[in-house]
């Protein structure tokens, strides 16, 4: 277990040294993951909400497809987006490939199904009388949604945190669409993969520990605000 100890010491060392290269990749990781999660939530939470409350033909089929999309491998997403935004793709002129925007696009495809599915399951569990109560008090669709989302907040926050965890720890899409270009699109995870390929396991794990430390910080903050809100 020396290996883990070494990694831990290296991680600490890297952290306290405030290495600018390190700060740079941490910043890129956070920025990209933050935007992916936010944009995905803006799509997925309303979508999940809508699917949960409405009853339409083929609802079960939609849920099955979403569940299947939970298994979408990052390579598939990466290649799919690649084929769209590469120089020869239909969106090639935008020059998106190997930019942070490209990573964000791919990651959104990755986690929209995740957040949607878990939003559906959070909303479905809410007693239907909440909805009826809101409606009889005169709430329109929007306020009714607010009520249900508030009652399901624990599940929805879980879904969003789950999505965030997924993107910040994700490697395939960041690598394929971002390209791991040093100083541009290198994230903590792609840097880890690089060190791993080099056989620098200690450094790779050290980076992983930094990632975990950053996430822990974010989760403590989030937990604190959630506590505030639910009071």
């Amino acid at each position: 277990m020396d290996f883990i100890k070494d990694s831990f010491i290296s991680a600490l060392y890297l952290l306290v040294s405030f290495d600018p290269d390190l700060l740079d990749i941490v910043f890129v990781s956070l920025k990209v993951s933050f935007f992916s999660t936010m944009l995905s939530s803006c799509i997925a939470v309303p979508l999940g909400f809508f699917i949960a409350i409405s009853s339409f033909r083929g609802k079960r089929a939609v849920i099955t497809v979403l569940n299947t999309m939970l298994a979408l491998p990052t390579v598939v997403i990466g290649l799919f987006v690649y084929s769209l935004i590469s120089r020869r793709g239909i969106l090639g002129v935008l020059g998106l490939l190997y930019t942070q925007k490209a990573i964000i696009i791919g990651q959104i495809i990755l986690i929209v199904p995740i957040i949607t599915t878990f939003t559906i399951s959070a909303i479905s569990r809410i007693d239907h009388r909440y909805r009826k109560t809101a409606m009889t008090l005169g709430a329109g669709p929007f306020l009714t949604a607010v009520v249900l989302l508030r009652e399901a907040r624990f599940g929805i926050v879980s879904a969003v945190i789950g999505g965030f965890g997924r993107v910040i720890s994700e490697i395939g899409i960041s690598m394929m669409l971002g390209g791991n270009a040093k100083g541009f699109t290198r994230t903590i995870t792609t840097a880890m993969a690089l060190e791993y390929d080099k056989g620098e396991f200690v450094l790779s794990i050290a980076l992983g520990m930094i990632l975990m430390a950053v996430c822990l910080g974010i989760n403590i903050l989030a937990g604190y605000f959630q506590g505030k809100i639910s009071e």
Partner: protein
Amino acid sequence: MLYHIKNLKKIYKGRTVLDLPELIIEKNKIYGILGPNGSGKTTLLSILSFLEAPSRGTVFYRGSPVVFSEKHLHALRQEVVLVDQHPIMFSTSVYKNIEFALKIRKVPLKDRCQIIKDVLEQVGMLEFINADAKNLSGGETQRVAVARALACFPKVMIFDEPTASVDKSSQLAVEKIIQELYSEKNISVIMSTHNMVQASRLVHKKIFLLNGHHVDSFV
């Protein structure tokens, strides 16, 4: 005429729980819906408050047929408010639960506090204004639900067994509220109850339901 129901049926999985060829409910009256358990009272009240669509038939509200699609119902629901048999409180404070109805009606912020205090006062729950609505006792919940409905300033108030779990003195308070709604504010009231004495004391017209059918009276 407030409501005019024609050939209305409500069917759950093949079982007809409500079957009303014709029913008329007039304005500015207090109606009492009576009937044994499972006779369809709650089902009828849900339809009258536009929360559920009938399986068949037409409901006329103030002369026009009701289109049971979310878009059209929203406006109607602003006029009619239902107090549920087992009311649900949102998981916020009592104050915020009532404020919700005021927000929807765009009551200015400065007036809200006063209105909330007034309606809570009427049901004798003022001291609970900042309590956590989820933790209220059975009767307290029912009384706050009445207060919350009062804050909606509706044209029609529908109560589903409003005094079932309410203590004696609060029961009188709720009955007084119902009286006043009718006499002072010209609000039509429709309520269900198992308490025949209460019905006789309070309502102008009784509707008897039995197995989903409208009957003249019970034997």
